């Protein structure tokens, strides 16, 4: 028996030990995302800051790539975390999984160093292969692309083989199909074409279908497991609802791809398809609202991990506002003609990624922190409980501040740069020099500092939570659970 409140890997099963490694790197890359975001934001205010040393393009590349990779690490970690429980069998090929973790992490480090130190290359294919593919979100050079596919395939093998040897649950089935789609879609981004329209057509296949379809379902699977474990909801119900959400999300999300095909040379029918399916995309969110209220009435939210529950609720709210409200505000082609390619997209992107995905991964961090410390108490009156509350408050204040500032900047841009000046060079800079824009960038930066403070508190909390607790985890069915 290990000491309560002290990290000890003996508390974890094999898959969970590997998951902890993924979570650690994920948390570190989250920090990298925040750091390079702050640097990029500063360059809006002081254009000569790091000019010619780490230019905006480099900071932005690292900012968005760190995002994609830390979330992926979080999802992979989350999957390994639940795998043995879910399949009721030890992870098959765990040694290989561990090896691939180190290979993948080494590759990430090399890619980051190349971004920072080499930055650009000559106009030859070898630049694409070795330095940078130059396509937002999937900049990773081709050698790393191949590495990522191999790593995902090994991960896929671990998951499939474990389910096959153990038992196939409904969650397991959805997870396997989803991972197959995740790996397959990545291939759609691995080719070079001089035709920028064809390039962006397939590029959106990867970005949109990852982010708005396969990631949503992956998070749905992990959340379904969490509902069973932390709230004690019956498997049959959880799995039925997972199917319902898959039907709604894929039904609206796959052809929702159309809202990226308005202005890239694609035919006119995408305006109607994109507009129609964008109007459908809030339907899964409405379903989640109704179901969450119903569930809370049935289960009264007895819960043994308050930080994880709070971040789960934040996920529901963040997803609704970030993806639902912020998405629909500028998605109809009649208005998107003016908002496309402005800070509108940045505002939506920040709130939606944070709301839908970062929150889910952070909730999982807290589940991992609890179990790795011997299932320590994490309910009401948690010793040092101010840390998770304040880190959450700062992260949200910072995120809402950034989102609002970018929204104002985007609104100004859509009017002055896009509608009045017609997106010319002069129009662009007229909008960038406008007091609304300049002010917004200042507030965005201040909010970014608040967010950074929240991140620091989060790390501190994750490393210390439960340390001074002597109580074991709250019994799920004891009537003592106290609201957060």
């Amino acid at each position: 028996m290990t000491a309560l409140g002290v990290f000890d890997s003996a508390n974890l099963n094999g898959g969970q030990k590997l998951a902890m490694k993924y979570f650690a790197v994920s948390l570190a890359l989250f920090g990298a995302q925040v750091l390079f975001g702050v640097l990029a934001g500063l360059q809006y205010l002081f254009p000569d800051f790091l000019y010619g040393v780490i230019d905006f393009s480099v900071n932005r590349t690292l900012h968005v790539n760190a995002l994609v990779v830390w979330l992926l690490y979080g999802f992979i970690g989350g999957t390994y975390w639940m795998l043995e429980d879910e399949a009721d069998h030890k992870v098959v090929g765990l040694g290989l999984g561990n090896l691939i973790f180190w290979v993948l992490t080494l590759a990430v480090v090399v890619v980051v160093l190349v971004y920072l130190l080499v930055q650009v290359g000559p106009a030859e294919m070898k630049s694409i292969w070795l330095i940078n593919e130059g396509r937002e979100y999937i900049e990773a050079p081709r050698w790393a692309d191949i590495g990522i596919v191999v790593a995902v395939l090994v991960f896929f093998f671990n998951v499939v083989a474990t389910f096959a040897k153990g038992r196939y649950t409904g969650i397991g089935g959805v997870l396997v199909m989803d991972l197959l789609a995740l790996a397959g879609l990545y291939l759609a981004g691995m080719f070079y074409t001089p035709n920028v329209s064809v390039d962006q057509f397939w590029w959106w296949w990867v970005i949109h279908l990852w982010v708005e379809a396969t990631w949503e379902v992956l998070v749905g699977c992990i959340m379904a497991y969490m509902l069973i474990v932390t709230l004690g909801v019956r498997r049959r119900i959880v799995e039925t609802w997972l199917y319902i959400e898959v039907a709604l999300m894929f039904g609206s999300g796959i052809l929702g791809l159309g809202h990226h095909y308005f202005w890239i040379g694609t035919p006119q029918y995408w305006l109607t398809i994109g507009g129609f399916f964008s109007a459908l995309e809030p339907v899964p969110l409405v379903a989640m609202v109704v179901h969450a209220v119903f569930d809370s009435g049935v289960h009264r939210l007895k819960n043994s991990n308050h930080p994880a529950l709070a971040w789960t609720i934040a996920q529901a709210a963040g997803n609704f506002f970030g993806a639902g409200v912020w998405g629909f505000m500028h998605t109809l082609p009649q208005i998107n003609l003016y908002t496309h390619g402005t800070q509108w997209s940045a505002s939506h992107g920040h709130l939606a990624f944070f709301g839908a995905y970062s929150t889910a991964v952070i909730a999982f961090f807290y589940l991992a922190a609890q179990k790795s410390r011997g299932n320590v108490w994490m309910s009401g009156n948690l010793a040092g409980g101010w840390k998770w509350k304040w880190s959450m408050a700062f992260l949200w204040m910072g995120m809402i501040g950034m989102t609002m500032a970018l929204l104002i900047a985007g609104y100004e841009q859509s009017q002055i740069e896009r509608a009045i000046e017609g997106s010319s060079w002069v129009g662009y800079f007229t909008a960038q020099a406008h007091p609304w824009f300049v002010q917004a960038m200042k507030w965005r930066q201040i909010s970014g500092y608040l967010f950074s403070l929240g991140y620091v508190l989060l790390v501190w909390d994750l490393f210390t939570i439960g340390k001074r607790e002597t109580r074991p985890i709250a019994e799920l069915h004891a009537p003592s659970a106290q609201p957060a």
Partner: protein
Amino acid sequence: MIEPVALADFFTVFFTAALVILCGGLYALLFAYARVKDTPRLMPLAYLSYAGLAVSALVLAHAAHLFDSAFWTLVVGLMLAGYLVAPHGIWHLCVGTHGDEDHAAPEPESPRLV
């Protein structure tokens, strides 16, 4: 063919589009809450939210020139009908899928979610 929004209508479009989703969410929330707590007096508020959604959607459709085309008018109509019945349908699904639970009827005690 689309008719882009006029500059003067930008704010209207952003604001009403946000309201459509917010009212839609509020409608779903109040509807489910009124049912789960068995408090029918909340139900008028739910339908008031839906009325807010409907007005917002019509203003949005007008500002975005959606009524200029039959297709977009149809989309607006479908959306209004869909968002009206969606919470009802989802509720039935909730009751149906939770049918074999120990306590099918939710007990009145304060939940903290949402």
